[in-house]
């Protein structure tokens, strides 16, 4: 066969060629040489696995167990550690890919992973690099900036952090004002303090604590965001700064244990703050109330059929599955049904790991919201009430009730709200 006389450095091999807006992709380029259809540029995999904390990204042996339990993949997000590894092996730049931001750090993949590919460590480590390069989705960046400026991701005034206490009939002791040791220091956290709907559970919990005679106090305006979700979304610097602030503040006061409303705060204070010198006993409010619930005298029977959504950061991350159930079962008149995906297998509301501030971004990459997928499951149980105990969830699920057309079929309530309702 005659050889074509081609200048070697002018041979172009491209699978897709567009010149002046006209696509010229044909097999013409085969005339010169064998074309590369598919190749492996593993430099991206090497880059990711060389980031401290992200080493285990390279350990995947493609068993595929993570994908069916990945809540993002379930809603059409084409996701899961197995797929991320594969894309990296193929040479896709994770830093340029939406895949970097899809993970909610729900930990369901790690639960089933035989190789310990740990997305809970990988995601913050890799995202931290993107944050340093300034490659962050706008809405997430806004939450970071709000946190930095106001001490909370909602962008609310730090001076108003304890304003919710004015909306309750009971006295809520603030540490700086009472100037005495307390048994329980209540770390309220941002959404419970500010969010118009999450606040309802906060106010109910204040009344429950008073009714039970708990000796407690809050930090009020001295408290700043625990920053756990910002950390998992890659803002490690901000997390460290806020952790140091909160630890310093907490150390000013004498108390026996810390109570958190928010499972994400629980996670930060229990698992991350000790790394910065903040060693405290920390419990979620459901864990705290479970042994005390029999002391409450009920005034009202709740004729609800309820189901319960396990928060990822209470259940899988911190191993508490029983306390919320004990509280629900103690409620007079309540019939409790489980969803198929419950306890360790629980689905994710989509709010963790920065997901709380990525709903617009995520909408382009999934077919339905995670919260919508969950609401459909809750409705299918025949329950009237979806019970939650994480401040992210009330608003997420209430939105999903509306967007899935399930208004009138199911309502969303925090456990504290139901306890308050039954105790009158």
């Amino acid at each position, binding site marked *: 066969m005659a050889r074509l006389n081609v200048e070697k450095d002018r041979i172009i091999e491209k699978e897709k060629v567009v010149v002046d807006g006209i696509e010229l992709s044909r097999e013409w380029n085969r005339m010169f*040489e*064998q*074309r*590369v*259809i*598919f*190749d*492996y540029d*593993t430099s991206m*995999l*090497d880059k990711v*696995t060389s980031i401290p904390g992200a*080493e285990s990204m*390279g*350990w995947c*042996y*493609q068993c595929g167990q993570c994908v069916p339990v990945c809540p993002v993949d379930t809603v059409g997000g084409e996701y899961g550690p197995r797929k991320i590894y*594969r894309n990296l*092996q*193929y040479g896709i730049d994770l830093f340029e890919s939406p895949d970097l931001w899809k993970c909610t750090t729900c930990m369901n993949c790690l639960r089933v992973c035989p*190789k310990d590919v740990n997305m809970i460590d990988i995601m913050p480590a890799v995202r931290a690099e993107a944050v340093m390069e300034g490659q962050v989705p706008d809405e997430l960046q806004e939450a970071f900036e709000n946190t930095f400026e106001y001490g909370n991701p909602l962008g609310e005034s730090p001076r108003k952090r304890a304003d919710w206490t004015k909306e309750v009939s009971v006295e809520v002791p603030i540490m700086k004002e009472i100037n005495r040791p307390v048994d329980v220091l209540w770390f309220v956290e941002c959404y419970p303090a500010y969010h118009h709907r999450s606040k309802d559970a906060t106010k109910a919990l204040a009344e429950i604590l008073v009714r039970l005679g708990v000796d407690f106090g809050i930090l009020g305006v001295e408290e700043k965001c625990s920053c756990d979700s910002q950390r998992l979304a890659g803002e490690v610097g901000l997390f460290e700064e806020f952790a140091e602030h909160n630890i310093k503040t907490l150390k000013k006061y004498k108390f026996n244990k810390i109570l958190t409303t928010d499972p994400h705060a629980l996670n930060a204070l229990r698992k991350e703050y000790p790394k910065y010198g903040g060693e405290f006993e920390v419990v979620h409010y459901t864990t705290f109330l479970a042994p005390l619930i029999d002391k409450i005298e009920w005034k009202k029977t709740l004729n609800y059929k309820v189901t319960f959504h396990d928060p990822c950061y209470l259940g899988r991350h911190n191993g508490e599955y029983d306390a919320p159930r004990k509280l629900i079962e103690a409620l007079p008149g309540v019939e409790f049904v489980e969803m198929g995906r419950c306890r360790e297998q629980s689905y994710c509301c989509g709010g963790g790991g920065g997901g709380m501030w990525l709903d617009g971004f995520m909408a382009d990459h999934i077919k339905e919201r995670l919260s919508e997928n969950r609401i459909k499951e809750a409705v299918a149980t025949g329950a009237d009430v979806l019970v939650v105990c994480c401040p992210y969830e009330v608003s997420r699920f209430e939105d999903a009730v509306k967007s899935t057309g399930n208004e009138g079929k199911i309502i969303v309530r925090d456990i504290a709200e139901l306890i308050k309702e039954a105790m009158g």
Partner: protein
Amino acid sequence: MTTQTVAIIGGGPAGIEAAKGVAELGFKAILIEKRDRLGGTPDEQKYAALTPDLRDTQTALRELIAPIENHPNVEIMYNTLITDAEGALGDFTLKGVQLGKEVEIKAGAVIIATGFQHFDPGRETQKYGYYEFDDVITLTDAEKMLSEGKFVRPSNGEVPKRVCFIQCVGSRDRRLGNEYCSKVCCGISSKQSIEIKKLIPDCKVFIFYIDMRMYGYWENEIYWKAQEEYKVNYIKGIATEIVRKGDKLLVKGEDTTFRRPMEVEMDVVILAVGMEPSEGTKEMARIFGLKQNKYGFIETIGGPLDTVSTNVPGVFAAGACTGPADLEDSVSAGGLAAVKAMAALRKLEAVTA
């Protein structure tokens, strides 16, 4: 005394261990080896490090051989080829040639440990161009280089930047007649990938596989180590063919999990060739009248519960002459064959007494 003598044919790991077992239990072992040294295929083919523990082959073999070299109960006959045999349990006469001279060996029982040979990738099929491309090599070719402490492109002596292994060459193939899995190649490829990465840390190493068969501790000791510590890339789907692209090799196949064709450039391609019965194994089967399976390996008769007895009483087979075997299998079978051979002779003695 013939009834207290066991002849062992083949001085590889299985034969050495069999001779050691016989000698240490008090019988006489005559170890017959066609070459002028012991060690079998790992020695002859110049293996670099052993699988799975990556120990230096020569060091490990020396340790294996040392206990029998000057053992009073062991006689080693080098450069000896067995050409004929007659007799039965308790009274075998083996005839052979030692450096051109005829020899006769008397033994009560015989252990065959004549091993395997590597599949020749140029046999019947040339789809990977083993004899066409200098840079397409086999696991054994790679072992030779690695044992000399180097790994280069045979075509030009340059250090390769991209190397891949193609698994299951000559194994699991109905068309070739080798339907079995050769058992060790996944482990050896993974072991070699570690050795290559140790020598050339920047080299990208890929292993194209159908199934990774890393049973037992090989899984975590080699496979996980290669992937996690040495960043070897495992890709499901083996290549179909290799074509020349400039001075590189273009490996064509399918990436099965992406469901896309792949064409990747490589500097060196290593064919993970499997095992076939050695000529010696086939010859011994003929001489002793041993049943062979359809692949030519000696057939043992006890299924999974007796891996060394053959259809001929008093003749046992150990190691890769009975089918694909790793070192662990071969050495274990060698010891077992020693026990079975001596037990057969003891029983015979008891009956005769």
